[in-house]
């Protein structure tokens, strides 16, 4: 399309379909949590509509791009949009990392009587203000909500599965960078090879993550294991969710590479997804360091 013209899309039904899908999904979720029988069916329906919307909408965008309806200005708009969207994700993770640091450095020591000593150790029978303090609550202690606190016998060892997973993700960063390099020199077969490797590593990561959850759960480390369990599962859980999204997006990119959608100079979708993957990878590094190590 001519560089001097503006591109403005026609009207579209996808957004309203998306709104309906997401609303049904969330209303179903809320009802499911409240024990309403149709809750989970509504969730499935809402999810299906949302996925349908995503494929329809993005499919349309891909078609328009392949048909050459876009120009560099549109490309830049997509770049800005994607970049700031990922930045908003950074801030979302920041909230949970903030909670982790706050609990570790402030609230847990305070509960143990640090600083002004309002709280004394006698407040809780056998309470000890270490980061994984839940292990020391007297068995049978319940949260305010009435849920019993689950006391783990053992925590996940940093040097086991997590270290392996870190290696996998780091390698996937390397393979993805190689794919990017190959794409920039228009070597499609290599791109495909490295992308397949990246996706495989991502899937392996997810598999090991599930295994790790299994072990942790068996050792009694659950969402209900106090603040340690809460931050552990929420951070790794949201991260795993993002890896899943990343794997799906990389797969779509793989198909598009096979169809020859990208060229050395024109491959925004690839770069957007690639940066997303690197971001998710860095989040994991942060997790690995702060949840498992320091």
């Amino acid at each position: 399309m001519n560089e001097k013209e503006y591109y403005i899309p026609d009207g579209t039904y996808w957004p309203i379909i998306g709104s309906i899908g997401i609303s049904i999904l969330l209303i179903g979720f809320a009802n499911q949590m409240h024990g309403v029988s149709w809750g989970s069916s509504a969730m499935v329906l809402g999810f299906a509509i949302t996925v349908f919307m995503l494929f329809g909408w993005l499919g349309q965008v891909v078609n328009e791009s392949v048909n050459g309806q876009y120009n560099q200005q549109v490309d830049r708009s997509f770049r800005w949009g994607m970049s700031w969207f990922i930045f908003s994700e950074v801030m979302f993770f920041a909230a949970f990392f903030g909670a982790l640091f706050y609990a570790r450095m402030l609230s847990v020591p305070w509960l143990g009587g640090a600083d002004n000593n309002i709280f004394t150790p006698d407040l809780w029978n056998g309470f000890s203000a270490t980061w994984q303090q839940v292990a020391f609550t007297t068995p049978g202690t319940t949260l305010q909500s009435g849920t019993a606190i689950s006391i783990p016998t053992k925590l996940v060892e940093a040097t086991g599965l997590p270290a392996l997973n870190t290696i996998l993700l780091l390698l996937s960063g390397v393979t993805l960078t190689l794919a990017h390099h190959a794409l920039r020199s228009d070597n499609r077969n290599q791109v495909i090879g490295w992308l397949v490797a990246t996706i495989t590593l991502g899937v392996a990561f997810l598999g090991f993550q599930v295994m790790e959850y299994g072990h942790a759960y068996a050792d009694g480390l659950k969402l209900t294991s106090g603040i340690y369990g809460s931050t552990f599962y929420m951070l790794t859980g949201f991260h795993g969710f993002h890896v899943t999204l990343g794997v799906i997006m990389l797969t779509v990119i793989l198909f598009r590479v096979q169809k020859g959608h990208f060229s050395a100079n024109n491959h925004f979708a690839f770069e957007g997804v690639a940066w997303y993957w690197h971001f998710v990878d860095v989040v994991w590094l942060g997790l690995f360091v702060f949840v498992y190590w320091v």
Partner: protein
Amino acid sequence: MTTATASHDEHHHGPEKGLMRWVKTTNHKDIGTLYLWFAFAMLLIGGALAMGIRMELLQPGLQLMDPHFFNQLTTMHGLIMVFGAIMPAFVGLGNWLIPMMVGAPDMALPRMNNWSFWILPFAGGILLSTFFMEGGAPAFGWTFYAPLSTTFAPDSTDFFIFAVHLLGFSSIMGAINIIATVLNMRAPKMKLMDMPLFVWTWLITSFLLIGAMPVLAGAVTMMLTDRNFGTAFFDATGGGDPVMFQHIFWFFGHPEVYIMILPAFGVVSHIIPTFARKPLFGYSSMVYATASIAFLSYIVWAHHMFLTGMPVAGELYFMYATMLIAVPTGVKVFNWISTMWRGSMTFETPMLWAVSFVFLFTIGGFSGLMLGIAPADIQYHDTYFVVAHFHYVLVTGALWSIIAATFYWLPKWTGKMYNEGLAKVHFWWAVISVNVLFFPQHFLGLAGMPRRIPDYSLQFADFNMISSIGGFAFGASFILFTYIVIDCIRNGKPATARPWEGAKGLEWTLAPKAQYHSFNTPPSRELIKSESQHS
């Protein structure tokens, strides 16, 4: 614009026919209109709840409702006004005006623009539906502090949480769109420092939104899991901390209040130069002041928590940082006044709203400074003084600028003029009643009346009655406002392309009723310069 290169396929000149136009539209003007009507509907609903609150507070003693329902009213009033009325209204203004002001045909990501709007009715619907659920609507205040919102809240809270997720998602998409529009769709000959202030303030607001809304999403997500999945983020029994909720909430909350006022600053910076017939005084200092306010707004959040408990060093830091915000804010007020200095001023309706904005917002700013003094806040906190403060900045600040903008740009939106006489009556009615409504609340607060309480002791009776009467009068003023706007749309006299003699800005170079797609060819450097706020 006759030489316009058709933007693309030839059939794309005007709006579609029929109702589906509004569902499918990717046009920034259509979407802006949708946003503005949605915000207005929410303003009326939120206003109706406020009437209920003032009715209950008309006299001491429990009059009309049980305290639990009163709490639902205050909570939902705050949530609806913040997330349903003020924020969408500014996004609506941004949609309508930014493409015109930067010389673009439309927004950068028009389909996503449609989605950011069309999430809102669903989110608003979910939020409002909580009134009809067992246990009633959320009743823990718009700040939803844990554990009120976790351990002690009704089931409907989970719906509220999802509504907040959706609203946040919509705001983030809106902000991304505005950033992409300003930075990528701007006329190639327009430099950043040529941009009108409304564009500048919205650009900076977008960065606040993208930084703050995801944190809010994080906060409600933690609430969700604390409520339903046994996590202990805000529960000290499991090593968490309810105070942490407040930190996370206000890390979002204070930028949020500036999200609601920065675009207002932009609006006023357009109206005052127009009717003073002088260029804006200190254009670049306005830009830098806006940016520094935005930066500072991220590092002052705990001034809402002086009484929650904090190390003394924290109290001191947050006190001084808060005071610092008064400096750039003062720069702005100074610039508006200097713009008017020796101008040949006239007082058409938009100018009346803008001048009263400067005056009344400054009152709110000063009470904010008083609240920012940590030792003094021990007296003021959680009293009606805080209520008076934030209503002066939000009603006579944010809302005032939205009304001012409506009158100022209505001719451009509709191609017609509103009834100036009626509009002046409406202005005086509103400005007097709003002060009767909120000014006595300062005294109530200083005398110690707590906020969010349906009953009060007898010494507060007089001021409360005055305040309530002002409230009813202010509420009624919106009937007149509705009439004026609808009358303008249906029977208004045709407007000229530039209805205000001193108005500058690319939007005034368009047809009296701006065409469906604003600029199909970018404006020239000469045009941009002669319409900039420097000249």
